[in-house]
Structures are given as structure tokens and as C-alpha cells.
């Protein structure tokens, strides 16, 4: 009887340990099919965790610029997740590396594009610059190479947000970013005249895309 009690106690402790290990990002591969029923929210939540952890800031008395890495599985959409192979979709996006660049003016709550403009033309030329000409001014620097952005998407906010957000993609597969001592994003600020701003991102975080398992998967 006593032995049975001890055994059940051990089983209880073992299950507790397993539950505690299921929280957070840890080793394990992304399941191959939607039949594995990972909630899409959990995938996005993990992607956001990684993105937030990789965030690097540059700030001075006037501006705050930040850059973060966006994992490829952040782009998996609801319609993709239904009955399709998630790994295929992820690998499609993983052929590029994606980053999010955010610019903000301290103590200024209007649309950032209006900050310090002299005329309406300035406002529209800023929109034109961020929409069509900013990509060559954003570079990815690895140990072996410097690459300009292949795509730069400027998120229009129409006065609703006080920040400028640029979704940037480089023609460098995510996997190639591993093994670098550091991954740097270099941004040349032509509009607000702050010069060249470098962001150092840790490759360990970028590596996590391969080994994640959404935390709610095991508990659900």
C-alpha cells in the first residue's frame, strides 16, 4: 500500500515537471500539418515573443528608433493553417529575412510625418520616400556580406499612429543568419537627419524559428 502511495506521488511530481517544461519557447520542430492543430494564435504569440525579445533600440533626446526581427512563421495566416502544410508555408517565407523598423519622436503625439515639416509638399515627399525609395537606405550586415533591403513596406497610418513603421525584407534566407557573431541592421535616416543608425540583433534569437513549439500546444 505504502509503495503504491510512493509511486503515485512520483507520477504526480513527474506530471508537474512536464507541465512546467511546456511553457515558453523550447526545443521541438514545428509540426508538419494542420492536423497537429496548433492554434494559430499560439504560433503568432510565440512569434511576437521572439520579435519582442530581439528588439534593439537607439534613442537620443528627440527620437526613438527600434528594430526587431520578425520570424517567418509570423506570416502564416488563418487560411494557410487550414488543411495545409505549415512547414511549406513557413519555408516559403524563410527564403527571406524580415525585420520591423519603427521610428518615433519623443513628446510628439501627432503623425510623425508631420514633425518639422515646412509645407504640405514636404509631407508628401516624405510619404513618397518611405513608400518607394527607402529600401536602399536599409542594409543587413552579416559577418560576410552587406545587403540592401529588397522590399520595404511603409505602413500608412493616416494620422492615427505617432510612429513610422517599415516592414523590411532582405534576400537572405533566415537560415543563413545563423552562425554570425551578430546581425546588424543599418538604417540611414535621410528625413530626420539623424545619420546612420545601427541595430545589433542576436543570431541566437533568430535561430529560434527552427526550434519552437507553441506553449499552448501541449496544454490544449
Amino acid at each position, binding site marked *: 500500500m505504502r509503495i503504491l502511495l510512493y509511486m503515485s506521488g512520483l507520477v504526480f511530481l513527474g506530471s508537474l515537471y512536464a507541465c512546467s517544461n511546456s511553457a515558453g519557447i523550447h526545443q521541438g520542430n514545428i509540426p508538419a500539418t494542420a492536423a497537429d492543430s496548433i492554434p494559430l494564435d499560439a504560433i503568432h504569440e510565440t512569434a511576437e515573443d521572439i520579435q519582442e525579445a530581439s528588439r*534593439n533600440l*537607439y534613442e*537620443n*533626446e528627440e527620437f526613438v528608433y527600434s528594430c526587431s526581427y520578425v520570424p517567418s512563421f509570423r506570416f502564416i495566416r488563418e487560411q494557410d493553417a487550414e488543411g495545409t502544410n505549415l512547414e511549406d508555408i513557413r519555408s516559403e517565407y524563410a527564403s527571406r529575412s524580415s525585420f520591423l523598423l519603427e521610428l518615433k519622436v519623443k513628446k510628439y503625439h501627432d503623425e510623425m510625418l508631420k514633425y518639422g515639416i515646412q509645407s504640405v509638399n514636404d509631407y508628401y515627399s516624405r510619404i513618397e520616400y518611405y513608400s518607394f525609395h527607402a529600401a536602399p537606405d536599409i542594409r543587413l550586415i552579416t559577418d560576410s556580406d552587406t545587403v540592401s533591403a529588397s522590399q520595404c513596406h511603409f505602413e500608412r497610418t493616416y494620422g492615427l499612429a505617432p510612429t513610422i513603421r517599415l516592414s523590411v525584407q532582405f534576400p537572405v534566407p533566415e537560415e543563413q543568419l545563423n552562425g554570425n557573431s551578430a546581425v546588424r541592421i543599418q538604417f540611414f535616416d535621410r528625413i530626420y537627419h*539623424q*545619420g*546612420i543608425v545601427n541595430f*545589433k540583433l542576436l543570431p541566437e534569437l533568430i535561430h529560434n524559428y527552427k526550434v519552437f513549439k507553441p506553449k499552448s500546444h501541449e496544454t490544449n
Partner: protein
Amino acid sequence: MSKKLKYIYPTLVLLALALAAFTLLKPQGQNIVYIDLPKVFENFQMKKDLESQLQSELKRKTQVLDSLKLVIGSMPLETEYDKKQVAYTRNDLMNTASSFDMEHQDHIKDYDNQVFNRLNQYLKDFAKEKGYDFILGAEGSGVIMAADDGMDVTEDVITYINLKYSGE
């Protein structure tokens, strides 16, 4: 014994007061260092990066001007109309060259300002982190006539600003 104790207490009180007064009134040593400003400026990576940016801009502009010169060189000069066309294009070349030149001068000024602003920001951070009250800039103009080499933090500053600039 009790007579001795009678003198010990006031002596201890006096000593404590003297110590407190000394601590409060002693002149505070100010932490002053200096840097070789031109050397810091020359070795700042941002300055080098902006310089190469400026060079590539200049190269692109030179290419535009060269193409215009090539166009002028290949234009026929047989009729009056041709000559007028050449004159117009030459005029265009002159205007483009002069606007490129003005733009280039503006960029040089702008980039210099950007470098100095960033340098000032990093130097403030450096002074704060290391606890320096003053960082003097020696630039060979006679502001600092002589100083102990031990107070020269130029190399430390160069390492610090370049690390900061690289996003560390």
C-alpha cells in the same frame, strides 16, 4: 579613573565633530579628463560611413554629368537648329552641375552636423558612465596648453563611441 573618563567623552565628541566638519567642508576633487578631438572625429566609424556614402553619391552624380557630356559630344552640329540644341543641352549640363555642387555642399554640412550631434550624445553618455565632471576637447588651438597624459582618454572614447555606434 573617573577623572580620566571625564576628559575622554568631550575629546571623543570634539573628534567626531572635527571629522564631520572635515568630511563636509573638504574641497571636492573634480574629475577632469581630456580628449584629442580631431583624432576622435577621424576615428569615429559614423564619420567614415557617411564619407563613403558621400563618395558614392558623388560618383552617381559624376556618372549623370558624364552621360550628359557624352550626349553633347555625339550631337550633330550641321544646321543652326543643331547648334541651338547643343547650346540648350550644354546649358542643361551647367545647371545640373551647379545644382549637384550645391547639393553636395549641403550634404557635407549636414553630415558633419550629424556626426557632431552623435559624438556629443555619446560623449555625454561616456562622461555619465565613467563619472567624469568635465571632458575637455584638445584640438591644438591652444585651449589646453599642457596636460598630464594620464588624463588623456582619447583611446577609451574612440572605443566607446564606436561600440555604441555599432549598436552594442
